């Protein structure tokens, strides 16, 4: 078999490329679970002050401590709060430039990404994007590396730093068990103004568009979470630019796992194809050298120059 060096290179590169592209292609075919649920928060409806019923309902549902929760204490809005192991959701206040006397309140929690960065960063697959939509955490396999917390573009997962023996990563579960029971998530259930709507994500996007179309003065022409980081299950409508109410506008529409997918899918190829390929190159060049040397050169000369040399002298 007379395979030229150039041809071999071409072939092997093509094979390698084929391997990579076919893997990536296989991922893109899956557009997410078709009937997955989502939540739509209409920040123009949230009243925030004296309410925070969602925070209370969330704590009760997730059996978190209600200690220190005083719903009529509006001083909590004086600074921006983040989710913590005891509060899977928090309502923050933002200044309203158009109407300073009526500030904007925004409820924040895990966004339940279509392609969650936390799941992709996890070494032990402790995070699962369920067919119902919520991204769930499995404490039984978690090793506590907290890569998920670093990976999350919204900085939502939190860690039981004060639990020395069985710390868990904690975040909103979108009330997965309530959804399975046929109920709606606790926060959406309790919200007096029904500022949080639960439904199929596809329906919610239509609803959000309808709302924008119907009241273009009230809403920004943007559904936050529709495209961000490849789409999230939790969607937001706002009456002001999303950057004014604490939403990053630089996250892009590429799912975060996509950034590492090329590299990660290449790892098996590098580990399996490359050794074979490089050995092949080596053998090929050896054979060629042998051919070029012609019949007058003895194989022993070749061996003396090569690494087999040592073998012979032993």
């Amino acid at each position: 078999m007379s395979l030229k060096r150039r041809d071999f290179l071409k072939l092997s590169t093509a094979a390698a490329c084929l391997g990579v592209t076919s893997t990536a292609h296989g991922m893109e075919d899956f557009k997410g679970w078709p009937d997955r649920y989502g939540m739509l928060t209409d920040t123009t409806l949230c009243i925030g002050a004296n309410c925070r019923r969602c925070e209370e309902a969330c704590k009760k549902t997730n059996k978190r401590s209600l200690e220190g929760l005083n719903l009529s204490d509006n001083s909590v809005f004086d600074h921006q709060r983040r989710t913590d192991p005891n509060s899977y959701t928090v309502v923050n206040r933002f200044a309203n430039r158009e109407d300073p006397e009526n500030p904007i309140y925004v409820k924040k929690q895990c966004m339940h990404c279509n392609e969650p960065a936390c799941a992709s960063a996890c070494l032990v697959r402790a995070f699962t994007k369920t067919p119902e939509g919520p991204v769930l955490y499995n404490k039984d396999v978690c090793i506590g590396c907290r890569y998920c917390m670093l990976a999350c573009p919204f900085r939502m997962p939190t860690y039981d730093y004060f639990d020395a023996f069985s710390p868990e990563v904690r975040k909103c579960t979108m009330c997965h068990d309530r959804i399975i029971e046929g109920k709606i998530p606790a926060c959406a259930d309790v919200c007096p103004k029904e500022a949080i709507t639960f439904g199929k994500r596809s329906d919610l996007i239509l609803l959000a568009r309808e709302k924008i179309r119907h009241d273009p003065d009230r809403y920004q022409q943007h559904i936050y979470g529709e495209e961000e980081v490849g789409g999230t299950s939790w969607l937001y409508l706002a009456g002001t630019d999303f950057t004014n109410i604490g939403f990053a506008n630089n996250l892009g529409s590429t799912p975060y796992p996509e950034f590492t997918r090329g590299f990660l899918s290449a790892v098996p190829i590098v580990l399996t194809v490359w050794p074979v390929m490089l050995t092949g190159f080596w053998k090929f060049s050896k054979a060629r050298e042998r051919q070029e040397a012609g019949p007058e050169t003895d194989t022993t000369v070749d061996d003396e120059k090569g690494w087999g040399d040592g073998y012979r002298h032993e």
Partner: protein
Amino acid sequence: MNRNLGNWCISVLLLLLITYMPCFGQSQDRSVPDATQPPCSDCHVCETPTKSNPCLEMCARTGAMPADLHKPSEGPGVRVIDELSDLYAPVDFNHKLHAEMVEMGEGCSVCHHYSPPGKFPPCNDCHTDESTEPQTLRKPGLKGAYHRQCMGCHREWSHDTKCIICHLPTNGYDLSGAPLDSTDILGISHPVITVPDKKVWTTPYQAGPVVTFHHQEHIDLFELRCVDCHKHENCSYCHDLRKEYSPRKTDEEIHAICNDCHAQDECGKCHGTKEKPAFVHAADGSWALNRFHAELSCRACHPTGKKISKLDHQCTNCHGGWNQKNFRHAVTGLQLDEIHAELECSDCHVDSAFDAPPDCSGCHDDGRSPKDAPPGHYVQAASK
């Protein structure tokens, strides 16, 4: 021949024109919609709505709604909202009051955003408790519908979102202790109103044209609530920017308000030739209030009736329970010595006339007075 042909052609053309003229007119008329009816697109989003698929607007809020053709006075008065009363006491929603308010603005359709012809459905006709389910997510549930309607305006208006504004607390659910008087303007929901200290009017009454009304004083002295005088005023009386619903009160109406309390008084009580001074207890009540009494509300001493009646000067009117044992004499500034402390009150204060100077002559016949021979020693009077 040619001329005949020309004439014939012209007459045929004229005939055609006359025949088809009304048709042009008709076809033009058909394209103009009936001005008395709102355009279909106000409610229906598709070209041809059918009974099975009326394709109604999700939340029809624009255009002429049938509700605009009616007056708020035709609506119900107080309506009790108790569908969701598991957590809260029923809400007494004063429909009439709110209807009067919307008269200033966009009319009934502010709340009745969807009113099919001939019908003014209450919220719970369309919005049901079950509609929080995913299949009807385009329509808020009853809880959401109520709160969106109420809190949108209330928040904008009073910047307050306390539940207590509408909900009375039920047992076991703390709605944060807010003052409760849903019957007065300033009770629970209205922001503080700055009232004038006094108002001075010049009237056509010649014997006493100047009427001085000490507004703040009436509130303080008589503990009047806004609605005690501002009886038949609705929100638009103050808030109507177009001034269409705030007609001037007639003389009879104005006098009727004052006559609630001043029916027996003479005209000169209010009318005078010059501005009347404010009430001073020393002048009108004949004695200046001391440090203890000045802190009391008027009703503490004058508890009965709208009219404040004069009390006689007997301290025992109010302080009947004091005797030699339980009265700490030092609060008056005089600490009695041991001998005098043993005496009965009436031994010095003859006939329990405590406002009169004490009399020493019962025991001492040297004509002494407490000033030159005090029955103890003077101390600093208690401030409280």
